């Protein structure tokens, strides 16, 4: 078990949270080897600007709080911010949408670009225990439900089988001039979710959606860890 991840989860539980914030979720994922987007958590407009300069434009700005799990639907995400001016405008707009009671922080992220989005996840199945999912990500996740599951622990061969098992598996190949997805990196990420599921019985679900394929490498740009009993 990763002790730093354990401390993050423990702190969230102590604070009575039922989910980890996006920032904390991705910290845990990263500690288990899932590639995640570069990001800085900030609490002020000035700090956001400093972070953006450090990360390099364009950036993404998100409200980040354990209480906010549907950021996109609430209009609390701004992508493709190319300048400091655009960042400040987005900051003001999102703060307004978040409302006067919002006391969460702000996440400044690198803008990860790629045409393909996949998703990985974990669920604690009533019959088989922690089970890991791979499938099409982004808006297609729910529409096509093109996913495959395996029971943890997930071996590398299982992870490779999961990629081959979805109907749209050819999207992982070098199609339309795109590079083939690095299946080794993808497999490591899938296997990591199995390990997290086995290490932390208090985690009931994980969504890593989407993972954007940048070049050939998948990068988690959003993440949600749900705490159960």
């Amino acid at each position, binding site marked *: 078990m990763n002790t730093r991840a354990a401390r993050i989860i423990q702190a969230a539980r102590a604070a009575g949270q*039922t*989910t980890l914030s996006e920032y904390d979720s991705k910290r845990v994922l990263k500690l288990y080897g899932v590639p995640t987007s570069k990001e800085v958590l900030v609490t002020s407009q000035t700090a956001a600007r400093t972070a953006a300069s450090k990360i390099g434009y364009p950036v993404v700005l998100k409200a980040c709080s354990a209480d906010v*799990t549907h950021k996109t639907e609430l209009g609390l995400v701004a992508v493709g911010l190319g300048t400091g001016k655009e960042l400040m405008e987005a900051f003001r707009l999102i703060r307004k949408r978040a409302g006067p009671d919002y006391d969460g922080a702000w996440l400044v992220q690198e803008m990860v670009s790629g045409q393909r989005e996949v*998703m990985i*996840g*974990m*669920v*604690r*199945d*009533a*019959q*088989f*225990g922690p*089970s890991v*999912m791979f*499938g099409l990500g982004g808006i297609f*996740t*729910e529409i096509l*439900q093109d*996913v*495959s*599951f*395996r*029971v943890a622990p997930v071996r590398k061969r*299982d992870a490779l*089988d*999961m990629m081959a*098992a979805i109907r749209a598996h050819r999207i992982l190949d070098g199609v339309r001039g795109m590079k083939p997805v690095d299946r080794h990196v993808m497999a490591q990420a899938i296997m990591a979710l199995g390990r997290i599921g086995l290490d932390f019985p208090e985690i*009931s*679900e*994980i*969504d890593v*959606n989407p993972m954007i394929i940048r070049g050939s490498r998948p990068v988690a740009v959003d993440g*949600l860890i*749900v705490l159960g009993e």
Partner: protein
Amino acid sequence: MTGIMENFFAPKSVAVIGASATTGKPGNVVIKNIRDNGFKGKLYLVNPRGGRIEGLAVCTSIDELPHGIDQAIVTLPAVAAPDTVRALGARGIPAIVLAASGFAEVDQMGEALQAELGAAIRESGVRVIGPNTTGHVSTPANFTSSFFPLGKVPGGHISYITQTGNFCGISLRHIMSAENFGVCRVVGLGNKVDVEESELLDYLGDDPETHAILLYLESIKYPKRFHRVASRVTKKKPVILLKGGASDEGAAAAQAHTGSLAANGRVVDGAMEQAGVTRIYKYSQLFHVAKALAAMPVPAGNRVSFLSPSGAFTVCMTDYCRAIGLEVPQLEEITRKRLQKFAPPFIRMRNPVDIFGSAGLVGYEKAYGDALDAVLSDRNIDAAVVIMMLTTESGIPGYDFLVKLARKHRGKPFYVTFMGQHEHNVAAKAYLEPRGVPCYMQVEEPFEVLSVLSRCRRSLGR
């Protein structure tokens, strides 16, 4: 082999509790079944009225039975089950088959009775198959506990674990009357109050008499255990599962997408795939796949050749093969040339093999026989299907050439199917199957079996 399962599958002595002198009653049929199957162990009967049944002396109570009996078959009504189990346990009988229905499958009273039965089993330390089952069969021991009139069950190396009371009754009758393969161990699990699929799969995985295992399950009692056991067994022998009720398996209340996507049996599907279990989705394939496994080896892959005298079949079946994950690859040049030898020059022979012209030129047996020999020798081909079109007018060939080719090509499977006059198809099947060539009455069936077995091949020897 030792252990409790031996008491079920290789008993040396058996008692029938509820033995009856009345023809047709379960307590009578089971005695006839045991005798018809040539059971060589000792048979004891219990009925409070005593006397003699089927020529055997009857004990009036379980207490009168000698010590050291391996197994008891109970054909008494459900309500008597808990007390009977306790009495058998006290008599030192470790393995019990409970036939009666009227437990949790019926109503709340039945549920309560089943709970009481469960307690009786735990307290007595006995092991139980059932209740609510037609029992089990073990042909290596010439034994059955079924109360459905079966007669002598043909022996073989195919074993079944099934969650339906009809299996050691009607389904077995179907196998015995419509098919020509033998079985090894067959279990109707019933309500699975004690013995369940994982333990049986584990046992059959190590059973040298069992070469392939087919399961029909509506639920998996210990999913993690089943997953673990299946992962081990599927490396050694084919494990084929028909899982009923998959569409009912919902996900737990979910906050994340992954949880909601875990519905519709997707986790079970993934878990079984991971464990190397080969899924089927048709009840009839429990028989179709079994007879292929009984007679022929598992194909090395999914590359198929087939012989057809009709252009329609070469087209349709090629389409169907692709739809179900089979390849119909090009043949080696040496094979193609050999096929061309007997063919009219205007037909360009290839895969699938249009055999019509050759059959017209050199006769049915020579054309089919040489072509089948050729494709089975081809390194691009893992399995073959022979489509025969039999009518009285076109003449009925001898079938021995197929039997001989089955013996010659022991490493590669082929199956026969038909289109044409039903009586000739039936006669061909009746001749070929007992001689080791599986036949299928519908033209898609042998391809479906190859699709299943090529998936199965991926698990073997991992």
